[in-house]
Structures are given as C-alpha cells and as structure tokens.
C-alpha cells in the first residue's frame, strides 16, 4: 500500500498536488468520491428518519380516515402550491450555484447562493403564514385544541363553502388532533432542515465572496447542494400527502 502510494506520488510529482488534497487520498477524484459517498450515507439516514414520519402518517390516515380527510381540508392549497414552486426554484438556483462553482464563476456562485438563501427564507415566511392560521383557529395539538371546525363544519364558513363537510362524531373528530400532530411534526422537521440549510448558506455566501468553492475545490458546495435537494424531495412528498390527496373524500 505505502509502496503504491509513494509510486503514485512520484509519478504525479508530489509537490504539485493542490492544497486541498488531503494526504490520505491518492488524488482529487478519490477525495471527491469519498466525500460524496459519505454525504449520500448521511442522506440515507435522513431518508429513514423522515420515512418513519411518513409511515406513521400513512398508518394513522388509514385508521382515522374521516378525521384525516377533514383535517387536511383545513390546509390552504394556494400556499402549499406557492411554497412548492418557491422550493423547486431554490433547488434550481442551488444547482446553478454548483455549476458556477464547477466552472469557477465567483460572482455567479455568490448570486445563486444569495437567491437560494432568499427563496429559502421565502418558504419559511409562507410556512409562518400557514402556522399562524392554525394557531388562530386553535388547531395546534395540545394548546387549547378546538374541535369546532369538525363537530360543526358550518362554523368554519370558508372551508365549509368549498368542501361541504358533514359533522364528525366526537370520537372521530378528536382524531383530527393526530393529523395536526403529524402535520406539525413533519412540516416542522422539514422547516428545521430548511433553517439549518439557510444558516449554512449564509456561511457559504461569506466564504464564496472570499473565493472559496471556485478554486477547483467544489466538494463542500456540491455536498451542500445534495442536502438542499434532499430537503426539496421531502417537500415534494409532503405536499401531495398533506394537502392534495384528500380533496374529494
């Protein structure tokens, strides 16, 4: 092993390797592959983590179906669609950012990162509007949770005129709280990932302005891109499951 390493170094001329190549890697390619592989392993643990939440959602939806249908009627499809578009656009700007890093365009990279940062904040802003509505209607589980909209749908005229929901029996109506527990757990955990991502983006904007990522060493930008796209994918599944699939039931 040490022989072949020495040979490889001798062949390429050891002094010439870029400063960001760690000595325990043979070359830049191997280093980038190792980092990418590790990032994917991390993302797979995240898949399992969110997978547990999705499984819980599907099981409870199956058990308390009428409650889940009516509770999901409370979500505003307009905000959900807008947020999906915002997040997809931010994924696009992030992908363009990685491209700028790969092709060594510093100002392009900074611009893309700033746009991604703003779109990420926009997503959280829209989420806040939606959360506020839930708080106003007492649809936050555990905090003076109100069954009013489900026991007496006509008391909630905006939702009623669209869906004409029939009143639920008390024991079923109580299970709408399970829906909102999962709603807040899933969108909240997703939002937490967004907040972490936005914080890292802020750090990256400073580093990119100083010339980082556009010097040939794109690993960090690229792996952050993977994280950001992963968060986008989670939302791609959350959106239909929470907002869309119960419109007609």
């Amino acid at each position, binding site marked *: 092993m040490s022989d072949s390493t020495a040979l490889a170094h001798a062949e*390429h001329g050891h002094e*010439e*390797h*870029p400063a960001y190549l760690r000595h325990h890697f043979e*070359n*830049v*390619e191997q280093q*980038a*592959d190792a980092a*990418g*592989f590790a990032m*994917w*392993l991390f*993302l*797979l643990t995240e*898949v*399992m983590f969110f*997978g547990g939440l*999705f*499984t819980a959602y*599907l*099981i409870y939806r*199956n*058990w*308390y179906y009428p409650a889940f249908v009516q509770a999901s009627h409370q979500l505003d*499809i307009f905000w959900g*669609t807008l947020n*999906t*578009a915002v997040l*997809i*656009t931010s*994924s*696009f700007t*992030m*992908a*363009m950012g990685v*491209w700028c890093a*790969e*092709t060594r365009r510093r100002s392009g990279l900074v611009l893309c990162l700033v746009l991604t940062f703003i779109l990420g904040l926009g997503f959280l802003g829209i989420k806040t509007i939606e959360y506020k509505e839930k708080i106003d209607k007492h649809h936050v589980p555990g905090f003076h949770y109100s069954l009013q909209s489900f026991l007496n749908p006509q008391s909630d005229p905006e939702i009623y005129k669209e869906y004409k929901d029939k009143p639920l029996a008390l024991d079923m109506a109580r*299970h709408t709280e399970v829906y909102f527990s999962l709603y807040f757990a899933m969108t909240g955990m997703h939002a937490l990932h967004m907040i972490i991502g936005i914080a890292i983006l802020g750090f990256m904007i400073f580093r990119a302005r100083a010339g980082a990522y556009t010097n*040939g060493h*794109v690993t960090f930008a*690229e792996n952050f*891109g*993977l994280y950001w*796209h*992963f968060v*986008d*994918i989670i939302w*791609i*599944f959350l*959106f*239909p*499951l929470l*907002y*869309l*699939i119960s*419109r*007609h039931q």
Partner: protein
Amino acid sequence: MTDQKEMEAASHHVVSPIIYIIIGGTLLVLTGVTVWASFLELGIFNPIVAILIACIKATIVVLFFMHVKYSSKLTKLTVFCGLFTFLALIGMTLADYFSRAWGRW
C-alpha cells in the same frame, strides 16, 4: 497544472445549465399537473396519481440536480440500496398494519 485540470475534467462531469433549466421547468410543470389532478374526481386514483407524480419529480431531482445519473457506480448502488431498504421497511410495516385486525379506533 494542466494535468490536474484534465484530471478534474475527467473525474467530474459538469452538467450543463440547459439541463438544469429543463429539469427546473419540468418540476414546476409537474407541480401544476399534480395540483390540477387533485381537483379532478378520480376516486381511488387521486392519491395514486399524486404519489406517482411525486415519485417522478423526486426521481428527476435525484438523477439530474443531485447528479446521480453522472455519478460513479458506487454512488448509484448506494442510492439504490438505500431506496430499496426504505421501500422494504415501509412496505412490510404498512402491509402488517393494514392486514391485521389490531388496534381500536
């Protein structure tokens, strides 16, 4: 230095922005389609169509935005194994829950 640049170019497939624009546009269009489909009365097919479109969107994000289409076999295998394990776990769990008469509701 040229040596090193060649090495980078060989190891690192740079995806062209045109592909990103096409993929971004496709994702936005599919978002519109899934919302439109949710307003149609499809009965049992409403959730199926919604999940199907979500899977298509997720697949093109993974393949193009996340570069898996252009990645090493190791990365492709890792992603596939992860997905397979996830589907096996969720599939077996759901099959168990949906087919057993346990739980009071």
